[in-house]
């Protein structure tokens, strides 16, 4: 199946920082692709650069960013504005900041359809009510007349999802959509996203820091660290047999009820995320890596571990942590 969205060798740099260093990924219809990593790894910046919503100080370059056969890099801002919210929609972590507190939910939802489809207010509101019902909001008619602050966090996020779906997008980019929510509400919102994606054949790019969400939601996962995709592949593969030292380390850090022994120390990765300035070469993880060697300071190529599983490390796929140096 042809990819709906494909990104090749995306680079984003800020005046004093290289935020994204050569990210490639493809997203197919009906597929959930998770971009996972810690803060500052460039996962949100990658998503924003697809939408061309980067801050002004950022410089973006790529071999291509394609939506079907359209090259987004070659598009004018007007064409991009048309595409955003229509064919490619995005939802953010904190719905409150992306909503205007002065307008009712109905008018904010309807506006999308009026702008993109020249729909009448009546049609747009009907569509909004239909979608609110579909995301499990009871009494949608009443909700349309309410203001954002009158909804709870979970309801606001459902409303954002409904707004994103107003124009039947093909791609939905969700940036940490449940991080601001309580755990029980998180499950409800994630279930909803899954259900809608299957029903509508959406391609979902889900950005998260939580490997639990990755495991339960994704078919495909790309692990990011210091601006690079360090490992990517089918989710079972990555969780069962992580290859990159960072992925292995990260999975060891996560306490799992019933699996990690209370009282025993968790696995942890020493140190913190490095600052990647201009001219940084080689593996961004080498300062924290137990297996680092001199050659890690040189550019590392992508290695194929079979079955669509790639990783960016000099080690063989079945490496073991060696106690001797």
């Amino acid at each position: 199946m042809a990819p709906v969205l494909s990104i090749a060798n995306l680079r984003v740099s800020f005046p004093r920082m290289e935020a994204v260093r050569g990210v490639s990924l493809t997203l197919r219809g009906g597929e959930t692709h998770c971009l996972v990593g810690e803060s500052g790894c460039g996962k949100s910046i990658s998503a924003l650069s697809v939408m061309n919503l980067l801050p002004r100080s950022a410089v973006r370059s790529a071999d291509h960013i394609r939506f079907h056969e359209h090259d987004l890099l070659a598009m004018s801002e007007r064409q991009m504005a048309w595409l955003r919210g229509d064919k490619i929609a995005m939802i953010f972590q904190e719905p409150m900041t992306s909503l205007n507190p002065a307008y009712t939910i109905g008018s904010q939802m309807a506006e999308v359809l009026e702008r993109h489809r020249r729909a009448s207010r009546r049609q747009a509101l009907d569509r909004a009510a239909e979608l609110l019902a579909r995301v499990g909001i009871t009494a949608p008619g009443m909700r349309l007349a309410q203001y954002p602050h009158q909804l709870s966090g979970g309801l606001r996020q459902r409303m954002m999802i409904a707004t994103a779906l107003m124009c039947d997008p093909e791609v939905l980019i969700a940036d940490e959509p449940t991080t601001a929510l309580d755990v029980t509400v998180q499950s409800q919102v994630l279930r909803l996203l899954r259900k809608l994606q299957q029903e509508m054949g959406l391609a979902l790019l889900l950005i998260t820091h939580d490997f639990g969400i990755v495991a339960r939601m994704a078919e495909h996962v790309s692990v990011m660290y210091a601006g690079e995709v360090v490992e990517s592949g089918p989710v079972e593969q990555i969780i069962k047999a992580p290859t990159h030292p960072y992925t292995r380390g990260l999975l060891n850090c996560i306490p799992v009820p019933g699996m990690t022994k209370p009282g025993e120390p968790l696995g942890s990765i020493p140190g913190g995320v490095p600052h990647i300035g201009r001219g940084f070469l080689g593996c961004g993880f080498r300062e924290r890596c137990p297996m680092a060697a001199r050659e890690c300071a040189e550019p590392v190529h992508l290695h194929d571990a079979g079955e669509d599983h790639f990783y960016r490390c000099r080690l063989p796929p079945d490496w073991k942590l060696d106690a001797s140096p």
Partner: protein
Amino acid sequence: MTHAIEVRNVYREFQQRSAAGRVRSAVHAVDGVTFSLAAGNVLGIVGESGCGKSTLARLILGLLPPSSGEALVDGRSLAHMDRRERARLIQPVFQDPFASLNPRQRVRDIVGLPLASQGDLTKRQQTDRIMEMLARVGISTEMADRFPGQLSGGQRQRVAIARALVLHPRIVVCDEPTSALDVSVQAQILNLLSDLRRELGLTYLFISHNLAVVEHIATEVAVMYLGRFVEHAPTQDLFRRPMHPYTQALLASVLTPEPALGIPDVGLGDAYPDPTDIPLGCRFHPRCPKALSECRTLVPDNIRKDGRLVECLLAAST
């Protein structure tokens, strides 16, 4: 067995006043909490946002006076203690290390504040204690003269832990100490807290919304809902056999990194808990998937069974 800390029937309301000064509504943030904790143990307090867990922490720390009830350390009420004495017994570690350190002070002054406030040590002795504590939490000497803005999130949280432990308190109240941190740093901080507890014989109150973290670090767990402990049990028991339907829903919503399990249906309704309007009967019944008709009118008693506490009518019958 001696109780390191004992909390007796603590209530705290916040009144929302109208412009004319009349009480419009009252938020029952903490609505009758009682527990005691033996020295050396870790009580994990879990619950969703707005359940009152952070208010409870502030009450116990003496930062906020309770509407009624009291918290005792060594059998003495914290409310009646001098601020210096209280500081020697109980110390906090807060969630966001970007907000809990004064951006205009150097690390050494931040960590030294509890010592300076006691006023019984010379500058020299204070410096020695500060450096010893910083080394203990893994902050190198040259960072002592930096400002918090020059440190990473993990380093800041280490500094906050050093400040909390520099007086060797008996109890440390950790209010979501790792939820603002990255996963790899969270593991470092959890390991550090565990090591320090063992070495210094500390007692923790560990407040978190992350059940996996609580399961890892706590010896007993209390589940808080709308200002009350609805279940309180040893960690193993609670995770193996949760009795309250709310605890069951919380446990179900933990997403472990196990593919193919999918997203669980936690079965809770959409009724969002509102501390200004606590439901009659069982406070959980509007969301409870197992609610009986009695739950709407009968307030469940505290049921104590096998060293655990549950507030649920269903638990009474089984």
